[in-house]
């Protein structure tokens, strides 16, 4: 079931009743595609959240009411469709040197550091949402035993490329920024590069897996310490 409500004067927020899942993401992505096809030039921007699609429209091209009519005519959307995003493999140098919380995560989760690495790198993650910072992608779900709360107070500076955990989510910090997630490793890839089009490496709907690499390999791949 999809519901709509205003997001300011030129936005429409479409929310899915179902709990976040790759299927919900897939149906939101398809809804966005249909809206863009039906109203070329009318949709000027869109943001996918875990359960929401917020579209921003050009009121000179389409009215809010017409856009809402289109949404309603598309009807309730199924959330059991498969995702058709890209498969992206992200190399990670997991260690206590590159991920200062690795030992603490292992202790909190009552497993060994090797188990943390093994569990984190054996899952395929859904890219649910992009935001917070350019190139930052919310990936989930991490294996249940790796569930861990955020830090009580965020760190002022998290190194660029940090691979991190919070709740049932994981992410790579694209640039140096404040952050409250638990750091378990470093990725040598640039998650956000203005020289690329689009500049973000990961898009909503992509499926991400992490592959453990050594410190040497991290440096070979352009990782910076």
């Amino acid at each position, binding site marked *: 079931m999809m519901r709509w*409500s*205003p*997001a*300011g*004067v030129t*936005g429409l*927020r479409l929310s899915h009743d179902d709990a*976040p899942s790759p299927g919900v993401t897939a149906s939101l992505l398809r809804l966005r595609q249909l809206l863009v096809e039906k109203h070329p030039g009318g949709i*000027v*921007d*869109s*943001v*996918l*959240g*875990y*359960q*929401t699609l*917020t579209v*921003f429209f050009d*009121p000179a091209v389409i009215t*809010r009411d017409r856009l809402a009519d289109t949404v309603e005519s598309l009807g309730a959307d199924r959330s059991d469709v498969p995702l058709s995003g890209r498969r992206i493999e992200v190399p990670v140098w997991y260690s206590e040197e590159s991920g200062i919380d690795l030992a603490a995560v292992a202790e909190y989760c009552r497993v060994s550091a090797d188990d943390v690495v093994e569990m984190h790198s054996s899952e395929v993650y859904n890219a649910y*949402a*992009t*935001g*917070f*910072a*350019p*190139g*930052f992608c*919310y990936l989930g779900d991490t294996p249940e035993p790796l569930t861990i709360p955020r830090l009580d107070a965020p760190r002022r500076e998290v190194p660029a490329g940090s691979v991190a955990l919070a709740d049932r989510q994981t992410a790579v910090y694209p*640039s140096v920024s404040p952050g409250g997630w638990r750091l378990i490793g470093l990725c040598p890839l640039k998650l956000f590069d*203005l020289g690329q089009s*689009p*500049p*973000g490496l990961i898009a*909503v709907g992509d499926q991400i897996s992490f592959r453990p690499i050594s410190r040497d390999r991290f440096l070979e791949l352009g990782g910076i310490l």
Partner: protein
Amino acid sequence: MTTIEVAKVGLLATLQDAGRPGLLGQGITNGGAVDGFALRCANRLLGNPDNSAGLEIVLAGMDLRVHCDTLVAFCGATAPVIINGDAQLMGRPLPVPAGAQIEVRPSSAGTYTYMAVAGGINVVPTLGSRSTVIREGLGGLDGQALSTGDQLPIGSCDGTSPAAHSAFRAFVPPPVEGPREMPEPLTLRFVPGFQYDDVTESCREKLATATFTVTGAANRMAIPLEGDALDTGLSQLWSEATCLGSIQIPPNGKPIVLLNDRQTMGGYPQMGAVIPQDCARLGQSRPGVAINFRSVSVTEADQLVWLSEHYEETHLQALDTLWRRS
């Protein structure tokens, strides 16, 4: 040399244009002048396209040196402008000869003073815009705030010599938006949305009736307000889009209104979004200004925005006549 040199910076100054729309889905904020109308007025006074980049000067206090004959115009927060020792008026084209010193003294009202230059400030655009987002290192000069010694490339100086525009000195331009008329308390009209229907009744009521004040933590990203704490009754939410004017209620219950450099997504409850014109007024408000909220229907909001845009366009067209007459 067709540049303007930053001789001394005050609190903060950045390059801004109309912003970087269409990239929210990639996590890239809109940016752009907080008081977009003030920057458009300054640009139109010089015959520039609306999207030309100008300086956004916070609480003013900035010295510039001009290295070629050009024209400049100031709009927005009221600040004394002194060119080669002579006091000038805001809201009109000012001829500036090569070598001149421009002083922008601390403003007496408002937060953001805009300076446009004939031909615009032509740094290389990033993702289609020259607007600076310091947090992301986008736009401006290397994505940073302006600093002493920066040389800003400006547009062609052809035909903008002071002599060519001496007519401006005698011509009284039509009224230009200078200091916005800002009654206190400032009422922010907002369209309810997001979690508005999910929060407690007392939370909605408090937002409608309480008076808040602008805090000193206000910046281009957001305006945190001080006042009675609101209890939304909601715990953790799934992250979703924010928008210009989003009224976020963080765990401490003090509303935060999101502005141009906002994060594209957030996980705090949002009560709706303040209409764009009131966002500009809020942005121009100094710490301590009293704030009320009033919810409006989407129909009323559409009418308010339409009227406001019509009013702005009428002003801008009046400024265009300046160029037809010269």
